């Protein structure tokens, strides 16, 4: 009996015609959408010989997490765009050759990576930013936008932060959206991300927008406490807006006492 499992949230734009093969060992987990049998052919047999499976390619969205891994040996016709369904005994996860675009490991969960995930993150971030124009943000409160950023981070936090960095450098996003990004970033506590996030704030401190400079200063102070003081003092040297200058000075004073 071969099994195939899709983890929660998998999106399957391809699936066979509508009738489920009741005897199939394929199963739906919550969120997946697979009425499970081959195109056009009612198949009472749940085992699919490797040479025939290639015609049943599942095209998974980039970034879909899968609980099984494909193998080049059995499915030579796969491409890096498609994730082939691999029918293997779930209790015997063997080490297999890993096709490009997949993480190699004995782990049971894989993600489409490298060129695929960052592109997906970028597209999702574009959509979030576009929708964010309609939102009213409030300091200290989560927003649809910040919650969306948090969900994106589950795919690849580094890809998200690099994309935010690019937006800060380009200055193409609205200042209110950039400030919301920075406030969200200040709450990311993973030590592994700290250097990347501090870099974000140091870029924000040099923004042409006083809103962004303010948010960067506040976020940096919150995230990094005493270590932020040197960055803030440099920002004070540059600041031209009197009111923001005073706020920066007060912030440094607050951190030093």
């Amino acid at each position: 009996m071969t099994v195939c499992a899709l983890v929660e949230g998998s999106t399957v734009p391809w699936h066979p015609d509508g009738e489920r093969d009741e005897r199939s060992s394929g199963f739906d987990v919550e969120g997946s959408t697979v009425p499970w049998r081959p195109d056009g052919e009612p198949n009472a047999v749940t085992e699919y010989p490797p040479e025939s499976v290639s015609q049943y390619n599942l095209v998974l969205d980039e970034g879909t997490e899968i609980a099984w891994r494909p193998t080049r040996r059995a499915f030579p016709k796969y491409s890096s765009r498609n994730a082939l369904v691999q029918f293997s005994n779930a209790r015997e996860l063997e080490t297999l050759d890993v096709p490009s675009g997949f993480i190699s490991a004995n782990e049971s969960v894989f993600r489409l990576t490298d060129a695929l995930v960052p592109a997906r993150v970028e597209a999702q971030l574009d959509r979030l930013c576009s929708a964010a124009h309609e939102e009213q943000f409030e300091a200290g409160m989560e927003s649809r936008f910040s919650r969306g950023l948090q969900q994106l981070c589950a795919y690849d936090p580094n890809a998200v932060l690099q994309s935010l960095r690019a937006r800060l450098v380009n200055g193409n996003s609205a200042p209110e959206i950039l400030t919301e990004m920075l406030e969200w970033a200040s709450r990311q506590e993973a030590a592994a991300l700290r250097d990347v996030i501090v870099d974000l704030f140091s870029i924000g401190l040099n923004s042409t927008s006083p809103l962004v400079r303010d948010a960067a200063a506040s976020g940096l102070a919150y995230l990094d406490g005493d270590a932020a003081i040197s960055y803030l003092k440099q920002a004070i040297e540059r600041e031209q807006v009197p009111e923001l200058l005073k706020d920066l000075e007060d912030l440094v004073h607050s951190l030093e006492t």
Partner: protein
Amino acid sequence: MRVILRKLSQKRHWDNAPWLERGDMQADVTKCLATGENKLSVFVLDEPNEQVERVVAALAVMRENLAQLDPAVAPEGILEECGIQWASTQGKTPDFEVNEWHQDLIKLTIAKITRLAVAIKLKGQIKRYNYKQVAEAIKHSLDANYIGAERMGRNLAHSPQKRIII
């Protein structure tokens, strides 16, 4: 002197931006004075030296995360100067006494909002409580039992940020 207090959504809108003509203000200040049914929520304080921080704490503790809070404080007399009416309505913060200080400015118009913005700018103060000062304010109110710990905003109460406060 009695004062009114209004929490601002973005302090930077009140800055004297370099591109502004003398005596003018950024149009975005009106975002901080956004009305609902032509009403605007403010607090009226008899003892601002003691009460401003308490209002800050009461507002901040309802949030999901610790962040700066920027109150605008101005003499209560500007309301009459601007022709603005008000009505006492209960606030909805976890500090019951702060709620007594709440007022709604009512029957507001474009002209009145504009006059109010100018009056706040000319006669008031735009303050900044950074996250540390907000945390201290909340702690004072918790220690003084102005706010019961059980009434903290749920997310703030269960977030890692609570360690900064307590």
